[in-house]
């Protein structure tokens, strides 16, 4: 590819839609080793956590209750110790990763899709529909996540689906707001006008030019939302309005562990470390992605 084509916002002559995220491959400089590794481990545990778990995460074994982790004088059978019911902490951690992964993936995919759809609708229609959609998004952002969850749980009851629904309702306006201005910025650029001039329809322009060029922004937003979704699942389960116990989720483990702060410190500490590390990695990865994909900082 010539450098002239590379610096253009898209290659209008190409037969397939532009793929701006390919910039990542060409970007020299620091790679996100730490955050990338943690995210990969999280994704692996999120998909196969219960398969690789050494014990049954729900198996109660009172004779083995409250064993400390191996590095604090425990046995290698239970690497991260056991909880008050003798359940293996490592196995619960791995299974809990599946809950967090499911919640994060669901919230990010559905929330992002709705947000993008609203952004296209608002950014392309303009006028009154745009004004209404923007206002609705602003008002929804004023509604705090936990309060929203309390209302929805009070009406519909608890469950993983409800947690995802709450997060989707909380997240779509964030995507919609940012992507709307992206859509407006892109659709007024010359290459999109050119495609209209050359006879391309509106649908063509949206699917071939506008949507692909919003992907970098969408990716950054989505990565940062992963962290928020994981924290939100933790908070809701901690309050007892998230994933219903006895299912192993990081929030449930923390909620159980709070009663053992003085006697079995690993119960509150271990899931918290896992949760914070994952969120930290998602945030760092998002920051890196933003810089790497931003044409302004690209050299």
């Amino acid at each position, binding site marked *: 590819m010539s450098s002239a084509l590379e610096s253009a916002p898209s290659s209008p002559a190409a037969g397939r839609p532009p793929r701006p995220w390919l910039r990542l491959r060409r970007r020299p400089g620091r790679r996100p080793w730490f955050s990338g590794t943690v995210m990969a481990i999280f994704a692996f545990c999120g998909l196969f956590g219960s398969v690789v778990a050494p014990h049954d995460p729900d198996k109660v074994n009172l004779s083995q209750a409250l064993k400390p982790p191996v590095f604090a004088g425990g046995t290698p059978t239970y690497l991260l110790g056991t909880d008050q019911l003798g359940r293996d902490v490592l196995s619960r951690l791995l299974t809990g990763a599946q809950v967090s992964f499911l919640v994060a993936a669901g919230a990010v995919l559905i929330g992002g899709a709705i947000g993008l759809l609203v952004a296209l609708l608002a950014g392309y229609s303009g006028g009154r529909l745009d004004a209404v959609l923007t206002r609705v998004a602003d008002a929804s952002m004023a*509604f*705090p996540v936990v*309060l929203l969850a309390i209302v929805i749980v009070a009406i*519909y009851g608890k469950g993983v689906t409800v947690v995802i629904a709450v997060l989707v309702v909380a997240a779509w306006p964030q995507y919609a707001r940012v992507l709307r*201005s992206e859509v407006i910025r892109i659709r007024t650029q010359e290459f999109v006008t050119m495609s209209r001039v050359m006879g391309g329809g509106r649908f063509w322009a949206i699917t071939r030019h506008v949507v692909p060029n919003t992907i970098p922004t969408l990716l950054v937003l989505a990565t940062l939302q992963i962290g928020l979704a994981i924290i939100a699942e933790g908070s809701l389960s901690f309050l007892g309005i998230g994933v219903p116990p006895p299912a192993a989720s990081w929030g449930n483990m923390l909620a159980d562990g709070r009663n053992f702060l003085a006697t079995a410190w690993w119960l509150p500490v271990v899931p918290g470390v896992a949760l*914070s590390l994952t969120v930290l990695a998602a945030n760092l990865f998002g920051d890196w992605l933003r810089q790497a994909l931003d044409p302004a900082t690209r050299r």
Partner: protein
Amino acid sequence: MTRYTLSRLLQGLVAMWVIVTIVFFLARLGGDAAALLAPPDATPEQIAAIRLSYGFDQPLHLQYVDYLRGIVTLDFGQSVSYRQPVVDLVIPAMVNTARLALAAFVIALVLGVTFGAIAGVRAGTRYDQAVRGLSVLGQSVPPFWLGMLLVLLFSINLGWLPAFGSEGFTSLILPACALAAFPLASIARLTRSSVLEIVARDQTLFERSKGVGPATLMSHILRNASLPVVTLAGIQLGAMFSGTIVVENLFAWPGVGQLAIQGIQARDFALIQGIVVVNTFVFVALLFVVDLSYGWLDPRVRAVKSAVKSKVGANVEAAA
């Protein structure tokens, strides 16, 4: 300025109306609203009586008017679990929540602006790197877990501070710190980037070359950098009023969050509805105050408010 204030006020009222309406329809779409308001062990006759006394048998638009009238006159109905008017429960709890949220806010704002400003002025130094690292960390650790760690260290191991309760000043310290970490981190990040931008401007170079002292220079930089920070601080303060819920739960702090959780466990929907409405009101009122403070901080806002606001919004999004 009056026109600006009025338009902001109107926008706030519209936002409130939208949320209150959403709550109304959520409750009615979810099935039998009378069953939601009834205690869990209510007989069908009792539910029928509730349906009648709340007017659930009436057409939806009449119910809606009644509902709005109740909110305007601060009448949220009767809490079934406490057998008291909801208002009498929510207001004292809100005062407690406000104490906690404001204490955390002061910590977050003072430390966040200080650390962020110094990091911005000394960009690239070790101090700057430390502030940036810590603020990413601060945005990744959930407040309830941070609270547990604080209890583990300061209450259980060192025995300096109480682990829960609301007696006296010392019991405020740990929950306030747990709650402050996240907003502190984001305020520090935004202040840093905002200060960095002002420092790079010609006006700063000019002032320096004129021989303006460091204290005066800093105050000019801070005032110029303050606009996005004020927006973020307002949003964070509003978010804190709901963020307290987990922290209140952990520290047994008698605020709105505790009340809401009890409301859920008792299936006390009137109570929850009252909490949501009062909380939304606080949030919208805070955003209104923030909007007004722009006009005070930056006279240009009054004239070209829309242009500046969209820029501020973009800055906040970029840093948040």
